[in-house]
């Protein structure tokens, strides 16, 4: 097939080649050290566990079976792994609750920042951005200080004589919820703020002029226009919360474990790498599902609000 080779197509082809070459170092690094490891992990989920960790190179579905079932130690019957069901259920529930709690506090905060005078707005925005970029572990230590047995709240309550013995708050679902909401809150505020900032307040004025009540205006004008920000914020909080590792480990310990800690366990004491790999694949698929939902939800609007 003869290809027409005008100078223009030749120049464009050269440019294309150069641009692919420029993109290639980043592409190669990510392919080798992020995509390849994930593929190896999928393979590992179909292998048999080694006695002291790692794997034995033979095909086995035991890893996948172990996600929701377990063999009884004594009579070898197959039963449902209730511990796993509880942990995965808790992860989803806590991630949803974290999303809801950050919405409750994040929406008003975003609204507050967006309605400040332009001269002070940058300052309030900066106050939200700082925690966003500071160490998650340090912020978890900080919120832990408030509720731990010898922590701030207990010290205050004890000194006021409200309680006689420290009130146990750590290592509960509530502690994990508080910790995750605390560390992930900026992820909710920032996209919601971006949506409100673009909001044309004359639309709300028009609604009031047409005798809409405050609630009606909020429900029919303001909330729909904030929706892209709310959806983006929810997905940004839900995804890291579902796979959280550090915060549940420090705030929940062994009693309020989450999905990420269960995966960790399989590669440590559990010595069941295929199960750990299978649990990781499932987590990745759930996250991918949430992302697909997000893309659909935003694409359905046809980019009109963008």
């Amino acid at each position, binding site marked *: 097939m003869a290809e027409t080779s005008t100078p223009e197509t030749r120049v464009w082809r050269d440019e294309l080649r150069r641009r692919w070459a420029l993109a290639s170092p980043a592409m190669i690094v990510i392919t080798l050290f992020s995509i390849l490891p994930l593929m190896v992990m999928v393979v590992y989920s179909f292998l048999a566990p080694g006695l002291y960790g790692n794997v034995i190179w033979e095909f086995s579905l035991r890893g996948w079976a172990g996600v929701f079932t377990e063999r009884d130690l004594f009579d070898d019957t197959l039963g449902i792994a209730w511990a796993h069901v509880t942990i995965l259920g808790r992860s989803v529930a806590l991630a949803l609750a974290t999303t809801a709690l950050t919405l409750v506090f994040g929406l008003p905060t975003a*609204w507050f920042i967006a309605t400040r005078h332009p001269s002070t707005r940058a300052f309030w925005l900066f106050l939200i951005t700082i925690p966003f970029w500071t160490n998650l572990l340090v912020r978890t230590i900080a919120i832990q200080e408030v509720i731990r047995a010898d922590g701030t709240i207990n010290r205050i309550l004890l000194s006021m004589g409200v309680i006689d013995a420290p009130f146990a708050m750590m290592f509960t679902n509530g502690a994990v919820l508080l910790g995750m909401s605390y560390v992930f809150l900026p992820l909710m505020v920032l996209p919601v703020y971006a949506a409100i900032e673009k909001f044309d307040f004359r639309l709300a004025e028009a609604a009031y002029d047409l005798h809409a009540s405050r609630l009606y205006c909020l429900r029919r004008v303001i909330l729909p226009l904030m929706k892209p920000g709310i959806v983006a914020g929810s997905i940004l909080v839900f995804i890291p919360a579902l796979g959280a590792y550090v915060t549940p480990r420090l705030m929940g310990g062994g009693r309020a474990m989450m999905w990420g800690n269960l995966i960790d366990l399989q590669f440590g004491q559990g010595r069941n790498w295929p199960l750990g790999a299978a649990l990781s694949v499932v987590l990745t698929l759930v996250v991918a599902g949430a992302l697909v939902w997000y893309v659909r939800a935003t694409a359905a609007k046809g980019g009109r609000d963008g």
Partner: protein
Amino acid sequence: MADRRFSVRHLPGVSGIALITFVVLYTPVLILVIYAFNAGPVIGRWEGFSLRWFTAALENAAFRNAARNSLIVASVAGLVATLCATLAALATTRGRRFRGEGGIYLVLNQPLLVPEIVLAVALMILLAQIKQATGYHGLGWLIIAHSTFCIPFAYMPIRARLEGMDLTLETAAMDLYASRFYTFRRVTLPLMAPGVLAGFMLAFVISLDNVVVSTFVKSPGQETLPTYLMGELRRNLSSEIYAISALLLFASVAVVAASWLITRRKP
């Protein structure tokens, strides 16, 4: 009766909740920093201002070693990620869109689309084999792992900067017979420099703060600051831990504030 002007921007209760949020966000961090400066050994019993826990940390060999590792990894991984991200950002912003650009974009952001714990575990599986085969257990693996997930973070501000610069200046230079390299060096590079610097700083902070990937990729006996902190927490909560936390906090805030000031300058 005071006549309060009606404003659509004012929603009842909003300011109250927002202020509570800011207080809740900052109080725990403030408490932590205050007790890092406590003269006494017991957290919660204030005995006066002192830097003793900071000096104790700085004299602690394990801390110094972890801090050195963290700084090496964050600097080198930050540089590698910034270099890769800069080239990729040039490829995806200078000139017409081309087929496959969406694919490049997806690959560049891929590390962000997978839960961190999954990436960490997957890297551990792969690197465990490679470590055994090569016998190398140095910091290189941490640097490679950090470079990988830092690329999307470095890419974001660099791309944003380049998108804000239109092509006319570069086209003008080329029209005046500047070579491609000369144009890049004298026109594109100076204009994109703040974006590149911001990209490096964000990559540096992201690497410095990383706990999960480091925990799984590090070789036995190797520690970065966050993994050292995580290990110490498991043992005992001490004022020294608060001092180290405060140091990490100051480092992140300083770098972020600097990068914020740089990116606020208009192209």
